[in-house]
Protein backbone atom coordinates (compact mmCIF):
# COMPACT_ATOMS: atom_id res chain seq x y z
CA UNK A 1 0.00 0.00 0.00
CA UNK A 2 1.08 3.53 -0.73
CA UNK A 3 2.93 5.23 2.11
CA UNK A 4 0.99 8.45 1.64
CA UNK A 5 -2.16 6.60 2.55
CA UNK A 6 -4.17 7.61 -0.49
CA UNK A 7 -6.23 4.60 -1.34
CA UNK A 8 -8.43 5.17 -4.37
CA UNK A 9 -11.80 3.43 -4.63
CA UNK A 10 -11.33 1.22 -1.54
CA UNK A 11 -13.42 -1.92 -1.23
CA UNK A 12 -13.94 -1.74 2.51
CA UNK A 13 -14.45 0.82 5.19
CA UNK A 14 -11.25 1.67 7.05
CA UNK A 15 -10.78 4.05 9.96
CA UNK A 16 -8.55 6.20 7.71
CA UNK A 17 -11.71 7.27 5.93
CA UNK A 18 -13.27 8.84 9.03
CA UNK A 19 -11.55 12.24 8.61
CA UNK A 20 -12.91 12.45 5.06
CA UNK A 21 -16.45 11.88 6.30
CA UNK A 22 -15.94 14.55 8.97
CA UNK A 23 -15.88 17.28 6.35
CA UNK A 24 -17.65 15.66 3.38
CA UNK A 25 -20.87 15.06 5.28
CA UNK A 26 -21.25 18.68 6.52
CA UNK A 27 -20.47 19.95 3.00
CA UNK A 28 -23.08 17.60 1.54
CA UNK A 29 -25.59 18.87 4.09
CA UNK A 30 -24.86 22.45 3.09
CA UNK A 31 -25.25 21.57 -0.59
CA UNK A 32 -28.41 19.55 -0.08
CA UNK A 33 -30.19 21.70 2.50
CA UNK A 34 -31.68 24.32 0.14
CA UNK A 35 -33.06 21.53 -2.03
CA UNK A 36 -34.57 19.69 0.93
CA UNK A 37 -36.00 23.01 2.13
CA UNK A 38 -37.68 23.78 -1.18
CA UNK A 39 -39.16 20.28 -1.38
CA UNK A 40 -40.68 20.80 2.07
CA UNK A 41 -41.79 24.30 1.14
CA UNK A 42 -43.70 23.05 -1.86
CA UNK A 43 -45.88 20.84 0.35
CA UNK A 44 -46.55 23.40 3.07
CA UNK A 45 -50.19 24.49 3.46
CA UNK A 46 -50.89 28.21 3.66
CA UNK A 47 -50.69 28.52 7.46
CA UNK A 48 -47.27 26.88 7.52
CA UNK A 49 -45.95 29.14 4.78
CA UNK A 50 -47.00 32.08 6.94
CA UNK A 51 -45.84 30.47 10.15
CA UNK A 52 -43.58 32.33 12.49
CA UNK A 53 -41.03 31.19 13.44
CA UNK A 54 -40.46 29.74 9.95
CA UNK A 55 -40.15 25.96 9.90
CA UNK A 56 -37.66 24.02 7.85
CA UNK A 57 -39.69 20.84 7.56
CA UNK A 58 -43.34 20.56 6.63
CA UNK A 59 -45.53 19.11 9.38
CA UNK A 60 -48.85 18.65 7.57
CA UNK A 61 -47.98 18.10 3.92
CA UNK A 62 -50.68 19.18 1.46
CA UNK A 63 -51.03 19.56 -2.28
CA UNK A 64 -52.54 23.03 -1.91
CA UNK A 65 -49.68 24.79 -3.70
CA UNK A 66 -49.88 22.43 -6.65
CA UNK A 67 -53.66 22.93 -6.82
CA UNK A 68 -53.22 26.70 -6.74
CA UNK A 69 -50.64 26.44 -9.46
CA UNK A 70 -53.00 24.62 -11.76
CA UNK A 71 -55.99 26.76 -10.84
CA UNK A 72 -54.28 30.04 -11.67
CA UNK A 73 -53.72 28.79 -15.15
CA UNK A 74 -57.28 27.57 -15.52
CA UNK A 75 -58.39 31.22 -15.31
CA UNK A 76 -55.95 32.51 -17.90
CA UNK A 77 -56.46 32.14 -21.63
CA UNK A 78 -53.70 29.56 -21.92
CA UNK A 79 -53.96 26.45 -19.75
CA UNK A 80 -50.85 25.03 -18.11
CA UNK A 81 -51.24 21.89 -20.19
CA UNK A 82 -50.29 23.98 -23.22
CA UNK A 83 -47.00 25.05 -21.63
CA UNK A 84 -46.31 21.48 -20.60
CA UNK A 85 -47.05 20.24 -24.11
CA UNK A 86 -44.74 22.88 -25.61
CA UNK A 87 -41.99 22.00 -23.16
CA UNK A 88 -42.27 18.31 -23.97
CA UNK A 89 -42.05 18.88 -27.72
CA UNK A 90 -39.12 21.24 -27.40
CA UNK A 91 -37.25 19.09 -24.88
CA UNK A 92 -37.71 15.85 -26.79
CA UNK A 93 -36.77 17.60 -30.03
CA UNK A 94 -33.56 19.04 -28.67
CA UNK A 95 -32.45 15.90 -26.83
CA UNK A 96 -33.15 13.56 -29.74
CA UNK A 97 -31.69 15.75 -32.48
CA UNK A 98 -28.60 16.75 -30.55
CA UNK A 99 -27.83 13.09 -29.85
CA UNK A 100 -28.28 12.16 -33.51
CA UNK A 101 -26.08 14.92 -34.89
CA UNK A 102 -23.45 14.62 -32.13
CA UNK A 103 -23.03 10.87 -32.56
CA UNK A 104 -22.83 11.23 -36.34
CA UNK A 105 -20.27 14.01 -36.13
CA UNK A 106 -18.42 12.22 -33.34
CA UNK A 107 -18.18 9.07 -35.49
CA UNK A 108 -16.74 11.06 -38.39
CA UNK A 109 -14.27 12.96 -36.18
CA UNK A 110 -13.14 9.85 -34.35
CA UNK A 111 -12.94 7.10 -36.94
CA UNK A 112 -12.76 8.63 -40.41
CA UNK A 113 -9.89 10.43 -42.08
CA UNK A 114 -10.42 13.71 -43.85
CA UNK A 115 -8.62 16.96 -44.36
CA UNK A 116 -10.61 19.18 -42.02
CA UNK A 117 -10.67 16.66 -39.16
CA UNK A 118 -8.05 18.39 -37.01
CA UNK A 119 -9.33 21.95 -37.50
CA UNK A 120 -12.99 21.01 -36.93
CA UNK A 121 -12.21 19.27 -33.64
CA UNK A 122 -10.00 22.16 -32.55
CA UNK A 123 -12.71 24.73 -33.32
CA UNK A 124 -15.21 22.62 -31.39
CA UNK A 125 -12.79 22.54 -28.45
CA UNK A 126 -12.57 26.30 -28.50
CA UNK A 127 -16.36 26.46 -28.68
CA UNK A 128 -16.52 24.59 -25.36
CA UNK A 129 -15.89 28.06 -23.97
CA UNK A 130 -18.77 29.55 -25.91
CA UNK A 131 -21.26 31.41 -23.73
CA UNK A 132 -24.57 31.71 -25.54
CA UNK A 133 -25.82 34.63 -23.46
CA UNK A 134 -22.94 36.75 -24.74
CA UNK A 135 -24.24 36.63 -28.30
CA UNK A 136 -27.97 36.71 -27.69
CA UNK A 137 -28.49 39.70 -29.96
CA UNK A 138 -26.77 38.32 -33.08
CA UNK A 139 -28.53 35.02 -32.39
CA UNK A 140 -31.82 36.86 -32.41
CA UNK A 141 -30.88 38.50 -35.70
CA UNK A 142 -29.92 35.13 -37.18
CA UNK A 143 -33.17 33.53 -36.12
CA UNK A 144 -35.07 36.50 -37.49
CA UNK A 145 -33.24 36.18 -40.80
CA UNK A 146 -34.11 32.47 -40.97
CA UNK A 147 -37.77 33.42 -40.56
CA UNK A 148 -38.35 31.02 -37.66
CA UNK A 149 -39.13 33.58 -34.94
CA UNK A 150 -42.12 32.55 -32.87
CA UNK A 151 -42.09 28.90 -33.96
CA UNK A 152 -41.03 25.68 -32.25
CA UNK A 153 -37.91 25.75 -34.38
CA UNK A 154 -36.79 28.94 -32.61
CA UNK A 155 -36.79 26.93 -29.36
CA UNK A 156 -35.14 23.87 -30.81
CA UNK A 157 -32.58 24.72 -33.49
CA UNK A 158 -30.34 27.10 -31.51
CA UNK A 159 -29.81 24.52 -28.76
CA UNK A 160 -29.08 21.40 -30.80
CA UNK A 161 -25.41 21.85 -31.61
CA UNK A 162 -23.74 21.42 -28.21
CA UNK A 163 -19.94 21.47 -28.29
CA UNK A 164 -19.70 19.65 -24.93
CA UNK A 165 -21.93 16.85 -26.21
CA UNK A 166 -19.93 16.35 -29.36
CA UNK A 167 -16.69 16.51 -27.40
CA UNK A 168 -17.68 13.86 -24.84
CA UNK A 169 -19.22 11.56 -27.43
CA UNK A 170 -16.22 11.83 -29.76
CA UNK A 171 -13.81 11.04 -26.92
CA UNK A 172 -15.89 8.02 -26.04
CA UNK A 173 -16.06 6.74 -29.62
CA UNK A 174 -12.23 6.89 -29.64
CA UNK A 175 -12.41 3.93 -27.26
CA UNK A 176 -14.35 1.72 -29.72
CA UNK A 177 -11.79 -0.76 -31.13
CA UNK A 178 -10.90 -0.14 -34.77
CA UNK A 179 -10.68 -3.88 -35.40
CA UNK A 180 -14.44 -4.17 -34.91
CA UNK A 181 -15.09 -1.53 -37.54
CA UNK A 182 -12.58 -3.07 -39.96
CA UNK A 183 -14.16 -6.49 -39.57
CA UNK A 184 -17.58 -5.04 -40.33
CA UNK A 185 -16.19 -3.28 -43.39
CA UNK A 186 -14.69 -6.54 -44.66
CA UNK A 187 -18.15 -8.03 -44.53
CA UNK A 188 -19.38 -5.19 -46.68
CA UNK A 189 -21.08 -3.00 -44.10
CA UNK A 190 -21.61 0.60 -45.18
CA UNK A 191 -20.57 3.56 -43.03
CA UNK A 192 -24.18 4.08 -42.05
CA UNK A 193 -24.62 0.44 -41.04
CA UNK A 194 -21.49 0.66 -38.91
CA UNK A 195 -22.84 3.82 -37.31
CA UNK A 196 -26.15 2.18 -36.52
CA UNK A 197 -24.99 -1.34 -35.58
CA UNK A 198 -21.63 -0.69 -33.91
CA UNK A 199 -21.14 2.93 -32.89
CA UNK A 200 -24.59 3.60 -31.40
CA UNK A 201 -24.78 0.39 -29.29
CA UNK A 202 -21.21 0.73 -28.03
CA UNK A 203 -21.46 4.39 -27.04
CA UNK A 204 -24.62 4.15 -24.97
CA UNK A 205 -23.03 5.63 -21.82
CA UNK A 206 -21.84 8.68 -23.76
CA UNK A 207 -25.26 8.99 -25.40
CA UNK A 208 -26.91 8.92 -21.98
CA UNK A 209 -24.54 11.62 -20.79
CA UNK A 210 -25.13 13.75 -23.86
CA UNK A 211 -28.87 13.31 -23.40
CA UNK A 212 -28.66 14.52 -19.81
CA UNK A 213 -26.60 17.57 -20.75
CA UNK A 214 -28.97 18.41 -23.59
CA UNK A 215 -31.95 17.90 -21.32
CA UNK A 216 -30.49 20.24 -18.72
CA UNK A 217 -29.80 22.93 -21.29
CA UNK A 218 -33.34 22.90 -22.66
CA UNK A 219 -35.65 21.91 -19.81
CA UNK A 220 -35.05 25.02 -17.70
CA UNK A 221 -34.29 27.35 -20.62
CA UNK A 222 -36.22 30.61 -20.33
CA UNK A 223 -34.23 32.55 -22.91
CA UNK A 224 -35.68 31.06 -26.05
CA UNK A 225 -39.22 31.81 -24.82
CA UNK A 226 -38.26 35.29 -23.68
CA UNK A 227 -36.37 36.36 -26.76
CA UNK A 228 -37.30 34.27 -29.76
CA UNK A 229 -41.06 33.99 -29.31
CA UNK A 230 -43.78 36.57 -28.86
CA UNK A 231 -47.04 34.63 -28.73
CA UNK A 232 -47.94 33.11 -25.39
CA UNK A 233 -49.22 29.87 -26.92
CA UNK A 234 -45.78 28.80 -28.07
CA UNK A 235 -43.86 29.49 -24.87
CA UNK A 236 -42.59 26.79 -22.53
CA UNK A 237 -43.11 25.73 -18.95
CA UNK A 238 -40.02 27.36 -17.38
CA UNK A 239 -41.07 30.70 -18.88
CA UNK A 240 -44.48 30.35 -17.29
CA UNK A 241 -42.99 29.27 -13.97
CA UNK A 242 -40.80 32.33 -14.09
CA UNK A 243 -43.76 34.68 -14.47
CA UNK A 244 -45.29 33.04 -11.39
CA UNK A 245 -42.21 33.34 -9.27
CA UNK A 246 -41.99 37.08 -9.82
CA UNK A 247 -45.21 37.41 -7.83
CA UNK A 248 -43.99 38.35 -4.38
CA UNK A 249 -46.97 37.19 -2.30
CA UNK A 250 -46.85 34.34 0.19
CA UNK A 251 -49.29 32.40 -1.95
CA UNK A 252 -46.96 33.09 -4.89
CA UNK A 253 -44.09 31.77 -2.81
CA UNK A 254 -45.83 28.45 -2.23
CA UNK A 255 -46.72 28.13 -5.90
CA UNK A 256 -43.19 29.06 -6.88
CA UNK A 257 -41.80 26.32 -4.67
CA UNK A 258 -44.20 23.84 -6.23
CA UNK A 259 -43.18 25.05 -9.68
CA UNK A 260 -39.49 24.76 -8.79
CA UNK A 261 -40.04 21.19 -7.66
CA UNK A 262 -41.79 20.31 -10.92
CA UNK A 263 -38.81 21.69 -12.85
CA UNK A 264 -36.20 20.03 -10.65
CA UNK A 265 -37.50 16.50 -10.16
CA UNK A 266 -37.23 15.25 -13.77
CA UNK A 267 -33.65 16.50 -13.84
CA UNK A 268 -32.75 14.68 -10.65
CA UNK A 269 -34.46 11.41 -11.61
CA UNK A 270 -32.79 11.36 -14.99
CA UNK A 271 -29.40 11.84 -13.42
CA UNK A 272 -29.93 9.19 -10.75
CA UNK A 273 -31.01 6.65 -13.36
CA UNK A 274 -28.05 7.40 -15.60
CA UNK A 275 -25.33 8.26 -13.11
CA UNK A 276 -23.14 5.22 -13.76
CA UNK A 277 -23.24 5.90 -17.52
CA UNK A 278 -22.25 9.49 -16.83
CA UNK A 279 -19.27 8.51 -14.67
CA UNK A 280 -18.25 5.99 -17.30
CA UNK A 281 -18.27 8.72 -19.98
CA UNK A 282 -16.50 11.27 -17.85
CA UNK A 283 -13.49 8.97 -17.61
CA UNK A 284 -12.90 9.80 -21.28
CA UNK A 285 -13.50 13.52 -20.90
CA UNK A 286 -9.89 14.67 -20.87
CA UNK A 287 -8.61 17.41 -23.17
CA UNK A 288 -5.08 16.63 -24.32
Amino acid at each position, binding site marked *: MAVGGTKVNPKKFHKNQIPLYLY*LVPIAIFMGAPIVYIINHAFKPMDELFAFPPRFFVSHPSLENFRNLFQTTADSSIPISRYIFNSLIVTLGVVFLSIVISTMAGFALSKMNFKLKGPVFEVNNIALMFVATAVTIPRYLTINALGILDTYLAHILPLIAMPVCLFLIKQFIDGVPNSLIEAAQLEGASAFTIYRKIIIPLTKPAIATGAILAFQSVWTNVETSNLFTSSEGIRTLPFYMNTLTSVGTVQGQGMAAAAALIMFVPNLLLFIVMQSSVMNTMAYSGIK
Partner: protein
Amino acid sequence: MRTKKSTPYLFLAPYLILFVIFIIIPTIMAIGLSFTNYNAVQTPQFVGLTNYINLLTQDTIFLQYVLPNTILFAVIVGPVGYLLAFFLAWSLSQLTRLPRTILALIIYSPSMTMGVAMTVMWRVVFLGDQSGIANYALTQLGIITEPIVWMLNTNYIMPIVIIVALWSSMGVGFLAMLAGLLNINAELYEAGAIDGIRNRVQEVFYITIPSMKPQMLFGAVMAVVSAFQAGNIGVMLTGSNPTPQYAAQLMVNHIDDYGFTRYEMGYAAAVSVSLLGLIYAFSFIARKLFSSKDE
Protein backbone atom coordinates in the same frame (compact mmCIF):
# COMPACT_ATOMS: atom_id res chain seq x y z
CA MET B 1 -11.48 3.41 -41.29
CA ARG B 2 -11.40 3.81 -45.06
CA THR B 3 -14.35 5.64 -46.58
CA LYS B 4 -15.33 7.48 -49.70
CA LYS B 5 -14.13 11.06 -49.63
CA SER B 6 -17.60 12.48 -49.15
CA THR B 7 -18.73 10.16 -46.33
CA PRO B 8 -17.10 12.01 -43.38
CA TYR B 9 -18.60 15.28 -44.55
CA LEU B 10 -22.05 13.72 -44.83
CA PHE B 11 -21.83 12.56 -41.23
CA LEU B 12 -20.44 15.87 -40.07
CA ALA B 13 -22.81 18.10 -42.04
CA PRO B 14 -25.89 18.29 -39.77
CA TYR B 15 -23.83 19.22 -36.72
CA LEU B 16 -21.57 21.52 -38.61
CA ILE B 17 -24.39 23.45 -40.29
CA LEU B 18 -26.14 24.17 -36.99
CA PHE B 19 -22.84 24.86 -35.29
CA VAL B 20 -21.98 27.44 -37.92
CA ILE B 21 -25.43 29.07 -37.94
CA PHE B 22 -25.93 29.36 -34.21
CA ILE B 23 -22.42 29.59 -32.81
CA ILE B 24 -19.91 30.74 -35.42
CA ILE B 25 -22.06 33.26 -37.30
CA PRO B 26 -23.44 34.96 -34.18
CA THR B 27 -19.92 35.27 -32.82
CA ILE B 28 -18.67 36.83 -36.05
CA MET B 29 -21.71 39.09 -36.17
CA ALA B 30 -21.03 40.21 -32.61
CA ILE B 31 -17.49 41.11 -33.60
CA GLY B 32 -18.80 42.98 -36.66
CA LEU B 33 -21.52 44.81 -34.74
CA SER B 34 -19.08 45.84 -32.05
CA PHE B 35 -17.52 48.27 -34.53
CA THR B 36 -20.86 49.91 -35.30
CA ASN B 37 -23.56 52.07 -33.90
CA TYR B 38 -26.75 50.05 -34.16
CA ASN B 39 -30.15 50.64 -32.58
CA ALA B 40 -31.91 47.56 -34.03
CA VAL B 41 -33.97 49.71 -36.44
CA GLN B 42 -31.64 51.69 -38.69
CA THR B 43 -28.76 50.12 -40.60
CA PRO B 44 -25.61 49.78 -38.50
CA GLN B 45 -23.18 52.65 -38.83
CA PHE B 46 -19.48 51.93 -38.83
CA VAL B 47 -17.80 53.75 -35.96
CA GLY B 48 -14.45 51.96 -35.70
CA LEU B 49 -13.15 51.37 -32.21
CA THR B 50 -15.40 53.98 -30.60
CA ASN B 51 -17.43 51.42 -28.65
CA TYR B 52 -14.33 49.82 -27.16
CA ILE B 53 -12.81 53.21 -26.37
CA ASN B 54 -16.03 54.32 -24.68
CA LEU B 55 -16.18 51.08 -22.77
CA LEU B 56 -12.72 51.60 -21.33
CA THR B 57 -12.86 55.37 -20.80
CA GLN B 58 -16.44 56.70 -20.63
CA ASP B 59 -18.61 53.96 -19.19
CA THR B 60 -18.30 54.76 -15.49
CA ILE B 61 -20.80 52.06 -14.54
CA PHE B 62 -18.73 49.48 -16.35
CA LEU B 63 -15.46 50.63 -14.84
CA GLN B 64 -16.76 51.28 -11.36
CA TYR B 65 -19.07 48.30 -10.89
CA VAL B 66 -19.33 45.83 -13.74
CA LEU B 67 -15.66 45.11 -14.40
CA PRO B 68 -14.55 44.83 -10.75
CA ASN B 69 -17.64 42.76 -9.95
CA THR B 70 -17.01 40.44 -12.89
CA ILE B 71 -13.36 39.92 -12.03
CA LEU B 72 -14.07 39.37 -8.33
CA PHE B 73 -16.87 36.98 -9.20
CA ALA B 74 -14.89 35.11 -11.85
CA VAL B 75 -11.76 34.75 -9.71
CA ILE B 76 -13.68 33.41 -6.72
CA VAL B 77 -16.15 31.22 -8.56
CA GLY B 78 -13.62 30.09 -11.21
CA PRO B 79 -10.33 29.13 -9.49
CA VAL B 80 -11.74 28.75 -5.97
CA GLY B 81 -14.71 26.75 -7.22
CA TYR B 82 -12.32 24.66 -9.29
CA LEU B 83 -9.97 23.91 -6.40
CA LEU B 84 -12.96 23.06 -4.25
CA ALA B 85 -14.28 20.73 -6.96
CA PHE B 86 -10.90 18.99 -7.17
CA PHE B 87 -10.58 18.74 -3.41
CA LEU B 88 -14.08 17.28 -3.05
CA ALA B 89 -13.53 14.86 -5.92
CA TRP B 90 -10.18 13.81 -4.44
CA SER B 91 -11.77 13.21 -1.04
CA LEU B 92 -14.72 11.34 -2.51
CA SER B 93 -12.47 9.08 -4.56
CA GLN B 94 -11.08 7.63 -1.33
CA LEU B 95 -14.43 6.43 -0.08
CA THR B 96 -16.16 3.13 -0.75
CA ARG B 97 -18.57 2.98 -3.64
CA LEU B 98 -21.99 3.45 -2.08
CA PRO B 99 -21.30 6.43 0.21
CA ARG B 100 -19.22 7.97 -2.58
CA THR B 101 -22.09 7.76 -5.06
CA ILE B 102 -24.60 9.21 -2.61
CA LEU B 103 -22.37 12.11 -1.52
CA ALA B 104 -21.35 12.86 -5.10
CA LEU B 105 -24.99 12.97 -6.14
CA ILE B 106 -25.86 15.42 -3.37
CA ILE B 107 -22.90 17.65 -4.17
CA TYR B 108 -23.66 17.56 -7.90
CA SER B 109 -27.41 18.13 -7.62
CA PRO B 110 -27.29 21.93 -7.06
CA SER B 111 -25.77 22.35 -10.51
CA MET B 112 -28.97 20.90 -11.96
CA THR B 113 -31.08 23.62 -10.38
CA MET B 114 -29.85 26.45 -12.56
CA GLY B 115 -32.55 28.78 -13.71
CA VAL B 116 -36.04 28.83 -12.33
CA ALA B 117 -35.68 26.34 -9.52
CA MET B 118 -32.57 27.99 -8.18
CA THR B 119 -34.08 31.44 -8.08
CA VAL B 120 -37.09 30.35 -6.10
CA MET B 121 -35.07 28.36 -3.64
CA TRP B 122 -32.70 31.12 -2.73
CA ARG B 123 -35.29 33.87 -2.77
CA VAL B 124 -37.22 31.96 -0.16
CA VAL B 125 -34.09 31.36 1.92
CA PHE B 126 -33.12 35.02 1.77
CA LEU B 127 -36.55 36.59 2.26
CA GLY B 128 -36.17 40.12 3.55
CA ASP B 129 -38.38 39.81 6.63
CA GLN B 130 -38.61 37.75 9.81
CA SER B 131 -40.11 34.79 8.01
CA GLY B 132 -37.02 34.22 5.86
CA ILE B 133 -35.10 31.20 7.05
CA ALA B 134 -31.71 32.94 6.83
CA ASN B 135 -32.91 35.92 8.89
CA TYR B 136 -34.57 33.65 11.41
CA ALA B 137 -31.51 31.47 11.85
CA LEU B 138 -29.22 34.45 12.33
CA THR B 139 -31.63 36.04 14.81
CA GLN B 140 -31.81 32.81 16.80
CA LEU B 141 -28.05 32.60 16.88
CA GLY B 142 -27.97 36.15 18.19
CA ILE B 143 -25.91 37.43 15.28
CA ILE B 144 -28.50 39.98 14.16
CA THR B 145 -31.42 41.66 15.88
CA GLU B 146 -33.21 43.19 12.90
CA PRO B 147 -34.02 41.18 9.75
CA ILE B 148 -31.75 42.02 6.84
CA VAL B 149 -33.36 42.94 3.54
CA TRP B 150 -30.86 40.76 1.68
CA MET B 151 -31.79 41.54 -1.88
CA LEU B 152 -31.79 45.30 -1.49
CA ASN B 153 -28.77 45.66 0.74
CA THR B 154 -25.81 46.32 -1.52
CA ASN B 155 -23.38 44.89 1.05
CA TYR B 156 -24.92 41.45 0.83
CA ILE B 157 -26.04 41.02 -2.78
CA MET B 158 -22.62 40.22 -4.19
CA PRO B 159 -21.57 37.77 -1.43
CA ILE B 160 -24.92 35.98 -1.79
CA VAL B 161 -24.51 35.78 -5.55
CA ILE B 162 -21.03 34.32 -5.07
CA ILE B 163 -22.23 31.76 -2.52
CA VAL B 164 -25.08 30.68 -4.78
CA ALA B 165 -22.73 30.44 -7.75
CA LEU B 166 -20.22 28.35 -5.79
CA TRP B 167 -23.01 26.19 -4.47
CA SER B 168 -24.17 25.39 -7.97
CA SER B 169 -20.72 25.09 -9.55
CA MET B 170 -19.99 21.42 -8.82
CA GLY B 171 -21.13 20.35 -12.27
CA VAL B 172 -19.74 18.43 -15.21
CA GLY B 173 -16.15 19.42 -14.40
CA PHE B 174 -16.47 18.01 -10.90
CA LEU B 175 -17.79 14.72 -12.28
CA ALA B 176 -15.01 14.58 -14.86
CA MET B 177 -12.35 15.03 -12.19
CA LEU B 178 -13.95 12.40 -9.97
CA ALA B 179 -13.97 9.96 -12.88
CA GLY B 180 -10.35 10.86 -13.68
CA LEU B 181 -9.29 10.21 -10.08
CA LEU B 182 -11.02 6.85 -9.97
CA ASN B 183 -9.23 5.73 -13.12
CA ILE B 184 -5.68 6.37 -11.96
CA ASN B 185 -3.79 3.12 -11.85
CA ALA B 186 -3.24 2.11 -8.21
CA GLU B 187 0.22 0.78 -9.07
CA LEU B 188 1.35 4.34 -9.72
CA TYR B 189 0.85 5.13 -6.05
CA GLU B 190 2.80 2.04 -5.02
CA ALA B 191 5.62 2.90 -7.39
CA GLY B 192 5.58 6.42 -5.98
CA ALA B 193 5.96 5.08 -2.47
CA ILE B 194 9.04 3.13 -3.53
CA ASP B 195 10.44 6.23 -5.21
CA GLY B 196 10.34 8.08 -1.94
CA ILE B 197 7.02 9.90 -1.86
CA ARG B 198 6.33 10.45 1.80
CA ASN B 199 2.95 12.13 2.25
CA ARG B 200 -0.41 12.79 0.65
CA VAL B 201 0.46 16.29 -0.49
CA GLN B 202 3.44 14.96 -2.45
CA GLU B 203 1.25 12.22 -3.85
CA VAL B 204 -1.30 14.71 -5.09
CA PHE B 205 1.32 16.85 -6.84
CA TYR B 206 3.61 14.14 -8.20
CA ILE B 207 1.16 11.38 -9.06
CA THR B 208 -2.50 12.35 -8.94
CA ILE B 209 -2.48 15.61 -10.88
CA PRO B 210 0.04 14.55 -13.55
CA SER B 211 -1.94 11.35 -14.22
CA MET B 212 -5.22 13.16 -14.75
CA LYS B 213 -4.10 16.32 -16.51
CA PRO B 214 -6.63 15.94 -19.35
CA GLN B 215 -9.54 15.77 -16.91
CA MET B 216 -8.05 18.64 -14.91
CA LEU B 217 -8.05 20.73 -18.08
CA PHE B 218 -11.58 19.78 -19.04
CA GLY B 219 -12.69 20.66 -15.50
CA ALA B 220 -10.86 23.98 -15.66
CA VAL B 221 -12.47 24.95 -18.95
CA MET B 222 -15.89 24.04 -17.59
CA ALA B 223 -15.19 26.04 -14.40
CA VAL B 224 -14.25 29.14 -16.37
CA VAL B 225 -17.26 28.89 -18.64
CA SER B 226 -19.78 28.31 -15.88
CA ALA B 227 -18.27 31.10 -13.80
CA PHE B 228 -18.94 33.59 -16.57
CA GLN B 229 -22.25 32.05 -17.55
CA ALA B 230 -23.63 32.19 -14.03
CA GLY B 231 -23.91 35.95 -14.40
CA ASN B 232 -27.68 35.84 -14.37
CA ILE B 233 -27.90 34.83 -10.72
CA GLY B 234 -27.84 38.41 -9.44
CA VAL B 235 -30.60 39.56 -11.76
CA MET B 236 -32.73 36.54 -10.99
CA LEU B 237 -32.37 36.87 -7.24
CA THR B 238 -33.00 40.60 -7.03
CA GLY B 239 -35.57 40.47 -9.82
CA SER B 240 -34.19 43.52 -11.57
CA ASN B 241 -31.61 44.44 -14.16
CA PRO B 242 -29.66 46.52 -13.28
CA THR B 243 -29.30 44.96 -9.84
CA PRO B 244 -29.85 47.45 -6.98
CA GLN B 245 -27.14 50.11 -7.27
CA TYR B 246 -25.25 47.81 -9.62
CA ALA B 247 -24.11 45.82 -6.58
CA ALA B 248 -24.01 42.50 -8.44
CA GLN B 249 -23.90 43.80 -12.01
CA LEU B 250 -21.78 41.49 -14.15
CA MET B 251 -20.79 41.73 -17.79
CA VAL B 252 -23.58 39.39 -18.91
CA ASN B 253 -26.13 41.70 -17.26
CA HIS B 254 -24.47 44.79 -18.72
CA ILE B 255 -24.90 43.27 -22.19
CA ASP B 256 -28.63 42.69 -21.63
CA ASP B 257 -29.02 46.12 -20.08
CA TYR B 258 -27.56 47.84 -23.15
CA GLY B 259 -28.87 45.42 -25.75
CA PHE B 260 -32.46 44.91 -24.64
CA THR B 261 -33.25 47.89 -22.43
CA ARG B 262 -31.44 50.69 -24.26
CA TYR B 263 -31.23 49.10 -27.72
CA GLU B 264 -27.59 50.10 -28.10
CA MET B 265 -26.78 46.89 -29.89
CA GLY B 266 -23.39 47.94 -31.20
CA TYR B 267 -22.20 48.86 -27.75
CA ALA B 268 -23.67 45.70 -26.25
CA ALA B 269 -21.82 43.70 -28.90
CA ALA B 270 -18.54 45.32 -27.88
CA VAL B 271 -19.17 44.21 -24.29
CA SER B 272 -20.01 40.68 -25.56
CA VAL B 273 -16.81 40.45 -27.54
CA SER B 274 -14.80 41.63 -24.53
CA LEU B 275 -16.52 38.99 -22.42
CA LEU B 276 -15.75 36.19 -24.88
CA GLY B 277 -12.17 37.47 -25.05
CA LEU B 278 -11.90 37.38 -21.28
CA ILE B 279 -13.25 33.82 -21.13
CA TYR B 280 -10.81 32.77 -23.80
CA ALA B 281 -7.91 34.37 -21.93
CA PHE B 282 -8.80 32.53 -18.72
CA SER B 283 -9.13 29.22 -20.56
CA PHE B 284 -5.82 29.86 -22.31
CA ILE B 285 -4.13 30.15 -18.93
CA ALA B 286 -5.78 26.90 -17.86
CA ARG B 287 -4.46 25.22 -21.00
CA LYS B 288 -0.93 26.45 -20.33
CA LEU B 289 -1.15 25.01 -16.82
CA PHE B 290 -2.53 21.60 -17.65
CA SER B 291 -1.78 20.86 -21.28
CA SER B 292 -0.14 17.49 -21.74
CA LYS B 293 0.29 17.81 -25.50
CA ASP B 294 4.03 18.28 -25.63
CA GLU B 295 5.09 15.69 -23.10
